[in-house]
């Protein structure tokens, strides 16, 4: 066996990890942008409670978050039962559940930098956009959102990294099923629990490191290009 060739199980874990993280990001990022904008721009009743709820997964033990998800979204949980009866959707013990767990855990890490970048955009610019005839949503999409892109990008990277490495909530909520919920982190954990699994654990560690490193480089290149396009009038 060639050391540099991935085995089917490793491929499976890698592809699943990327799929789970991408799905988590795809759903959670727009929501994070919305929540961050509301928290940055509006003072409404319950502002503090929403803020605290968003940050809960950050301070709770991941196992607790996973267990709460299991209680709510499990087959017998109130939300889970409703979803499966009404839409035929189930999060229990499949990869979408892993994506849900990863998204919830990544959410506060995404909201924070995005909120900060919204707060840095002068709200007076939106007033100027409105005076030029733009409706609120158009003003947001054409002025505030583009100016917040660096923060949104930062939040997305943090969130994606968190989603890729999520462990505690995932294993509690959707268990550790090969090909379904066994991501790289869970596969690594499995290898460490197996006698003579040292080589397998080391290989998985390398894979995770390479993926993380590539993601960082890619985001850096992307961010630099973006900076050139958005802020850099000198180019």
């Amino acid at each position, binding site marked *: 066996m060639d050391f540099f060739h991935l085995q089917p199980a490793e491929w499976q874990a890698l592809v699943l990890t990327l799929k789970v993280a991408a799905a988590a990001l795809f759903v959670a990022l727009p929501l994070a942008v919305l929540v961050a904008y509301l928290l940055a721009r509006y003072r409404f009743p319950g502002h503090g409670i929403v803020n605290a709820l968003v940050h809960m997964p950050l301070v709770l033990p991941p196992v607790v978050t996973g267990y709460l998800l299991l209680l709510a979204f499990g087959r017998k949980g109130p939300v889970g039962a409703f979803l499966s009866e009404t839409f035929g959707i189930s999060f229990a013990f499949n990869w979408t559940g892993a994506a849900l767990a990863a998204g919830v855990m990544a959410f506060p890490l995404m909201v924070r930098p995005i909120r900060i970048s919204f707060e840095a955009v*002068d709200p*007076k*610019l939106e*007033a*100027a*956009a*409105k*005076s*030029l*005839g*733009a*409706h609120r949503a*158009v*003003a947001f999409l*054409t*002025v505030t959102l*583009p*100016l917040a892109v660096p923060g949104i990008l930062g939040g997305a990277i943090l969130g994606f990294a968190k989603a890729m490495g999520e462990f505690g909530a995932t294993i509690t909520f959707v268990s550790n099923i090969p090909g379904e919920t066994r991501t790289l982190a869970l596969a690594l954990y499995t290898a460490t629990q197996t006698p003579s699994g040292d080589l397998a654990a080391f290989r998985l560690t390398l894979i995770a490191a390479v993926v993380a490193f590539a993601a960082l480089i890619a985001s850096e290149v992307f961010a630099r290009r973006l900076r050139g396009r*958005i*802020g*850099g*009038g*000198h180019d």
Partner: protein
Amino acid sequence: MIDVDIRGHVGRLEIVAHFEGRGGVTSLFGPSGAGKTTVTNMIAGLATPSSGRISVNGTVLFDADKGINLPVQARRIGHVFQDARLFPHLSVRANLTYARWAGRRSGTRDFGEVIDLLGLKDLLGRKPETLSGGERQRVAIGRALLSGPRLLIMDEPLANLDHARRNDILPYLDRLCVEAGIPIIYVSHSIEEVTRLSNTLVLLSEGRTQAFGPVAAMLAREDLVRVTGRREASALLSGTVTRIDTAWDLVHVDIGGPVLQIPGLAAEPGDTVRLRILARDVALASVPPEGLSIRNALAATIESITGEPGPYAEILCSLAGQTIRARITRASVSDLGLKPGMAVTALIKSVAIDRGQSTLAPPASGET
């Protein structure tokens, strides 16, 4: 035509504003903190009055009694902010056309025409951060004009500029005020800008409009002088250019009979011009003097003498149906025996007018 009659408050400042602008440029003038920006924000829809009514050219923008309160984007008011507020991520061109592509406004004004009016041709491809303060304001004015507004609000567009930049942009404002074709509300705490540009002057202090009226009449008011300070006390003469004397480089301006000779005025015969004349540049003589270097010696009649503590007296004189203000010592008033109704000769040094304070007049009231 603008009708504003509103009450409201922002923070601790109570706003009571009532004025009418009859076409052309209406200036909101007052010291810093008088509530000028708050009033314009209420007109623009960025702040809401608690009661009253705002209408522009017959269109009601706000009426508390009838429950009318058009949102900002529906008011069609071009708003030039003190801090320009250009969109930093967009090029100058994209800023200028924002109202078209984001606001879905089809401006009636031609893009090229606005570019020419404000001298923006060479700036189109640049980003706002590379522009000077004066260039930013010009782009902001262009952007507002191209949104097809029914009213243009300019909120101290020159306040953040140094003296040189201010003088760069003033000629553009002169042209704009003449050529805009829509009513303009111009906010400033500089009486020089206000007298140069406006038809109607609204005096605002401590959140309240104290008075409003034609600029020349307002300049004669005592309460205005209290705001501007004695050194800036002035009067406005308007007239028609009759002759350019190239031999002596003087422009002859007919102010309704008498003719003033003024140096350094860029005008053509037939142009209507306005001349702001500071009270401290006017002297009075009880008999027509001879052998003077002062070229402008005009027959005038004393209307009033304001007595006040201190060495000076302010004298308002009528001169060919217009008003001129003189500031002389109280000792001279006594020595010459000056009294209301007396015929005097007003002496205006020609060079005193040559300070860029003489400009083409904006369209007269009622033209728009």
